[in-house]
């Protein structure tokens, strides 16, 4: 699905990530952890072609990222669901319209039934007509997750999806992610919340990647 081969990324100054090689297999569940500023978000951005590696090769669905045109990137993103810590919506459109946005921008029709089901699944059915600024942090996170999965993507990348919510809500979001994984989606969650990782490991076979000293390593079973 997503492959990194000797990937390095540097921001003008020194290298933030170097010599990263790994493969996200279909149906796998990975956590990505490490201290703030270690490069978790950068890693995710490389994985959805927001950034291009300064050296090495990132392959998304068998396509070399450096060879993708802007339209190819758009098409690739339709196969990747992305959830951010501070998820952005179009504030002038209702929650339901925001959910359907991935369909709208690809000139496809979303089925009202699917939309309804998805909103019930994340527990936001009663807020379908609300505007995004009226939602709480936890509601926004769940809405972002719903928007990420509406087009039935193969991969879900989540950057600190529980960063702004309390523990109870974190568990709820984790449960949703686990359910998606059980449906066969490849999941990568960047988080610094070790409790969340422990909680997940109790429910599912999850691997933990740790960023340390610019490298991404597979963490041991000590978590």
């Amino acid at each position: 699905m997503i492959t990194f081969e000797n990937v390095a990324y540097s921001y003008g100054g020194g290298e933030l990530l170097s010599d990263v090689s790994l493969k996200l297999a279909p149906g796998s569940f990975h956590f990505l952890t490490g201290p703030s500023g270690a490069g978790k978000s950068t890693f995710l951005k490389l994985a959805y072609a927001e950034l291009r590696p300064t050296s090495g090769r990132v392959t998304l669905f068998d396509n070399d990222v450096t060879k993708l045109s802007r339209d190819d990137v758009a098409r690739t993103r339709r196969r990747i669901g992305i959830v951010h810590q501070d998820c952005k919506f179009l504030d002038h459109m209702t929650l339901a319209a925001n959910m359907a946005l991935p369909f709208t921008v690809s000139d496809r029709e979303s089925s009202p039934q699917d939309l309804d089901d998805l909103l019930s699944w994340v527990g936001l059915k009663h807020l379908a007509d609300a505007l995004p600024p009226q939602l709480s942090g936890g509601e926004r996170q769940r809405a972002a997750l719903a928007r990420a999965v509406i087009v039935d993507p193969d991969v879900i990348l989540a950057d600190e999806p529980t960063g702004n919510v309390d523990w109870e809500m974190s568990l709820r979001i984790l449960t949703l992610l686990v359910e998606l994984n059980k449906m066969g989606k490849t999941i990568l969650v960047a988080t610094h919340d070790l409790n969340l990782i422990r909680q997940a490991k109790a429910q599912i076979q999850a691997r933990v990647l740790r960023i340390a000293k610019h490298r991404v390593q597979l963490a041991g079973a000590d978590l």
Partner: protein
Amino acid sequence: MRPPAAKPASPATRALEVVPPSGPTAWLTTFTAGAMTFLCVFALALSLASGRLANRWSEALAKTSTIRLSAPAEQVQIQTDAILAALATTPGIASYRALDDAETRALLEPWFGPGLPVEALPIPRLIEVVEADPPYDSEGLKQRLAAEAPGALLDDHTRWRRPLAEAASRIRLLGGLSIALIGAAMAAMITLAARAALATNAEVIRVLRLVGAKDSYIARAFVRRFTLRTLAGAAVGAAAGLIGVAALPAADAAGGFLTGLGFTGLGWLWPFALPPLAAIVAFLATRRAAFQKLRELT
């Protein structure tokens, strides 16, 4: 039923909806497009009118000339006959005729008023000469006239008509240049407005890119909006300009330059082409600005 399902909008309409409604500055684009088109109608009228004038003058310039005869009363008829005889034997002349008193009076009336006693005044006799193709040798004719009718003077109009015709065609050129400048200024203004709108909506664009929108989809939303606004503004501007031109006093027989300003015949169709042209300019300018700006954002 949820709002998006309840009103099945066309993809194009929905592309418009994903960009938030732009605030109170939106009408500035419409206003500028209107003002520019209004100006353009007058530049067009000026250009077309001076074009007509230049054509008319150069045509007349090319074809006719006048022989003016000033002689003592008893000499007039003798010399007139001599001139006509000379003209009859000069090659390169299509036709000629002496203007009679009534015609001379008509020519002078605008300056001296009616009831002019032409006979009592030492008014020169006028003979109109229309040249053929190839034309006569004007220098040769002048010398021949000097010998046979000393009071005759050949005026081939060149001296005073050529600068006027040149001025008229220069004005036509300036009119065309003004139209081009107005179009370019409108394109520049729309580009600035579109870039500002794109910058204001950078966050929206980021969200759209994140969920897999292509550049063309995002650009469509902006392009449609600016094209429609420009079209509306230009339509109002063109209508106002047309009313303005139509309200100008009509050209009378005296055929002055200023009163001739306006459209004639099919020329009236030109202003109607302006709003679509303005819309095309807006379309291209916004499209270019949008793709440029989108490349700056990931």
